[in-house]
């Protein structure tokens, strides 16, 4: 269960405060995979970052007993001049894995990401698709209650997209996801329920298809 209690989040711009969320109170049920929809710039990623506790609401509270992964976005989390392998080891150490577990994770990520020789090359030589392969593979080897996935699935080539979708479907048997995506097919396949972020408000839908309908309506307006 994720509780938001009168949460407000704004950014200061020259024209005053720009609200991402304005006094939002909502409870998201447990054991559901949640799709997050909204137009660009409405604050989907900010909400993800707030759930990942690396961004903080200006007022209000976000409460949850669950553990969240770091937000798996297109960028970030990796150090450019270290190899993919070194980065994987680093994240494992952050989460307190033992050396044996680290070796297991390294092997798994290397196999899953199909980076081959690039796995031992500095991250700065990676394309964005390769980075998200690494990041996605890595996140699969932790047991979070919620994976926060921000568009990562839509990069990568067709073959890897298919593979990662299958891996994710398998993973969500044991954990849940919060997924930001503009690909309605992916959202339908993976998510049970949906929220639509629009003009500082969050609307919750019991069925992802209803959320998609609402999103289509917003896009037309």
């Amino acid at each position: 269960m994720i509780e938001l209690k009168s949460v407000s989040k704004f950014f200061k711009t020259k024209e005053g405060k720009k609200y991402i969320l304005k006094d939002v109170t909502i409870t998201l049920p447990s054991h559901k995979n949640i799709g997050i929809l909204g137009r660009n710039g409405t604050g989907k990623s900010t909400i993800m970052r707030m759930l990942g506790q690396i961004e903080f609401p200006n007022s209000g509270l976000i409460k949850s007993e669950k553990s969240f992964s770091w937000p798996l976005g297109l960028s970030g989390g990796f150090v450019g001049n270290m190899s993919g392998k070194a980065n994987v080891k680093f994240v494992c150490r952050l989460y307190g894995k033992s050396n044996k577990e680290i070796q297991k994770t390294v092997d798994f990520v290397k196999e899953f990401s199909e980076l081959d020789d690039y796995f031992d090359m500095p991250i700065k030589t990676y394309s964005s698709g390769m980075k998200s392969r690494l990041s996605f593979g890595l996140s699969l080897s932790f047991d979070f209650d919620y994976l926060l996935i921000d568009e990562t699935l839509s990069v990568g080539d067709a073959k890897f997209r298919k593979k990662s979708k299958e891996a994710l479907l398998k993973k969500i048997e044991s954990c849940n996801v919060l997924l930001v995506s503009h690909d309605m097919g992916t959202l339908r396949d993976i998510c049970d329920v949906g929220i639509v972020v629009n003009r500082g408000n969050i609307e919750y839908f019991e069925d992802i298809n209803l959320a998609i309908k609402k999103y289509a309506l917003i896009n037309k307006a």
Partner: protein
Amino acid sequence: MRKRSSFRIFLAVQNALFLRELSMRFSSGRMGMFWTFFEPFFQILIFVLIKVLIFGKTGGNFDFSVFLALNFIAFNMFKNIVSKSMGSFRANKALFVYKQVKPIDTIIARTLIELFITGCIIIIFFSIGYYFNFDMEMKNFAMVAFGFFALFLFSFSYALFLAVLNVFFDSTAKIIGFSMTPLIFGSAVVYTLESIPVEFQGLLLYNPLTHFMEIIHGFYFYALDDHFVSYSYISLWTLSFLYLGLWFYIKLEKRIISA
């Protein structure tokens, strides 16, 4: 995900950051591992050589080259902790996506790295000194170690304070950058406080670094002592910087993370 205590998390983060920082330095360039230790070593060596070759060993009844090496090791530890920590919020921004990495962790890790490197340099100098038969007998090992430790704490407190200040006034790093070299001459690094005119002694004693230097070489050489040192004065500086640094940090932590 299994629950970990805050302290376990802190240790895991420090372990990860320390190893990452070290491997980053080792992997910078072809001879990264060598230069990690020998670049600061040569910096000190060159200073000592120039001073001794040009001005001679005008120290009195102790080995002036040992004196200079000792002081420069201590001063460089201070300088590197401060200059490396000041930019560490910005340099490690990418790591704040992992919620267990707090900005202050990156400063602690960098400070520990500098302490580690300083330890290695001391070992290198000792080996070389013994090989060439320098007179390196120490008067009071415990107090010299204490001097280094006190200086280490002071450097960390000062670095934390400056790092937080640097978040808002990015001129801080620049000012501190060019004030480091003159500080060498104002902190009893290249001379003993006793050897300079009395009217300057009082002035230099306002500088807390002078006190740390006087502790370190005062307890190393039989010919010197610590009668200039005010322990309460340096404690006051250390605690004030630590208090202010932590206070500002706590207020600003969230802003630094999501900046």
